[in-house]
């Protein structure tokens, strides 16, 4: 289930991706951290490799307080392996779509972009998915959730 970290590392080097950090401690599995500019190439490279990470399980974001971590959860059905690609995005930066590699990303990217205040580019339908347009990016830690008092006194 856990792919061989050295195999993945060498795969990424061969694909020309430098500076990727791999770790399996304290996380959900093997986490590959790459730069924002490399994200698309990494996802495509992992898919084309003989590990065949063709299945995008999930695409979502985590607000770490300093930046937004976009997580691509990939799975290889043939080898039954999973890994997580984490990409750090500055607040308000651009999220490049990977829908051409994984069409499964279409709706999750819309949701992630609107929930974390990122701009979605390269996407055929970048409209809001869940929130009405003009809403604050809800999942950012800086956006306060209303307390029960506030809701009552509105």
């Amino acid at each position, binding site marked *: 289930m856990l792919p061989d970290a050295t195999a993945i590392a060498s795969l990424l080097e061969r694909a020309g991706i430098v500076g990727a950090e791999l770790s399996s401690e304290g996380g959900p599995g093997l986490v590959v951290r790459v730069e924002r500019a490399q994200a698309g190439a990494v996802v495509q490279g992992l898919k084309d490799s003989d590990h065949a990470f063709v299945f995008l399980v999930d695409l979502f974001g985590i607000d770490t307080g300093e930046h937004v971590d976009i997580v691509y959860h990939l799975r290889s059905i043939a080898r039954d392996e999973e890994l997580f690609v984490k990409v750090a995005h500055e607040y308000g930066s651009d999220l490049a779509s990977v829908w051409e590699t994984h069409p*499964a990303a*279409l709706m999750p990217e819309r949701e992630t972009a609107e929930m974390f205040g990122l701009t979605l580019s390269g996407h*055929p*339908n970048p409209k809001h998915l869940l929130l009405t*347009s003009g809403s604050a990016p809800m999942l950012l830690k800086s956006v306060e959730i209303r307390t029960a008092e506030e809701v009552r006194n509105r």
Partner: protein
Amino acid sequence: MSDARDTVAHAGWLTADKPSLPDEIPLTLKRVPSGVDEVMTEHLVVNMGPQHPSTHGVLRILVELDGEEVIACESVVGYLHRGIEKLAEHRRYSAVGTLMDRGDYVSGIHNEMAFALAAEKVADIGVPRRANWLRVLMGELNRIASHLVWYGTMGLDTGAMGQFLYAVRDREDLLDILEDVTGQRMMFNYVRPGGVLNDLTPRAEKKIRAFLSTFDAYLDEHHALLGGNEIFQARTRGIGVIDKETAIAFGLTGANLRASGVSFDVRRDRPYAAYDEMDFDIPVAESGDIYARYLVRIEEMRQAARICRQCIDGLPEGEHTAKVAKVLRPPAGEAYAAVESPRGELGVHLVSDGTDRPYRMRYRPPALFGLQAAEAITPGTFLADAVAIFGSVDVVLGEIDR
């Protein structure tokens, strides 16, 4: 993989050279040349939902029609968005279960179980064997209930009203059992980190046995009424085909994926609870059309009943929950746990920062991926087929909108 990209680009409004579409698509008649002399014809842009007898929840589907044929189709969701992921960051671990119930409201046990598994991974809590068996038992009963709802709405979508009521009649028995065990008909809050809420009473056990003794015969009846019907088969065979590559490309899981020929089941491939001790088959179909998804789900109901029998007969002794602190404070960490919900792989990615509330809880909704796939394959079919396709991928808006 060009196939999947082509199906997405085929939907008329979704083209890369129109990156910023207005939020409201004007619902007008679009005049287009008909191809015959100078005659202009009109494509109707119709709106199905959010209130419509056949959308499965508050789903709005914009359809551009050329007569009866669907040219383009776009689904609009968000009518049921309640901010479950944001709310989960402000609640203690024991309270998040109530939030998860309300995601996919038709199969609450699986939602709760996904979160409980993730919390147990992060907090490193062991679950007693009896609790695991109870989780499996309740989960499979909930699976049958959810599939019965799907079966009934499949009948309604194709025009057969009777089947819905027969399905609901059987579901009433299940909800009765679930209410007996958990106290609630739908929002159970039963599976908690560490175990389950209540143990099984003898009265509940009797009800479960009574249900299981008649269910297989009723299931045959249901299958004969709808699946055996020629009209239904003409409406569903060869319609809405999702082939293997498209299914994988769109992230489909569960019955949708297995009906397209890929045998992946979280219960077997990432075993959780007591599934590694259970003996069950996983139905896989090859054709990927609506009828295949129908057959896979009917067979899943049968297998679920089989698992329930094994659970009831072999329930081990022991505690129904581990001793878990009232206020759970797991160490900082991150975990992903998935369950096989009736809709597919329902995953919870939990990030903990050491406090008593989750730092980030991501709820992976299997129905969202199903909706995308349905939306992509609908152009080119008829309006009546569109209704059947959206019904066959089993969308529940509570899960998609969270």
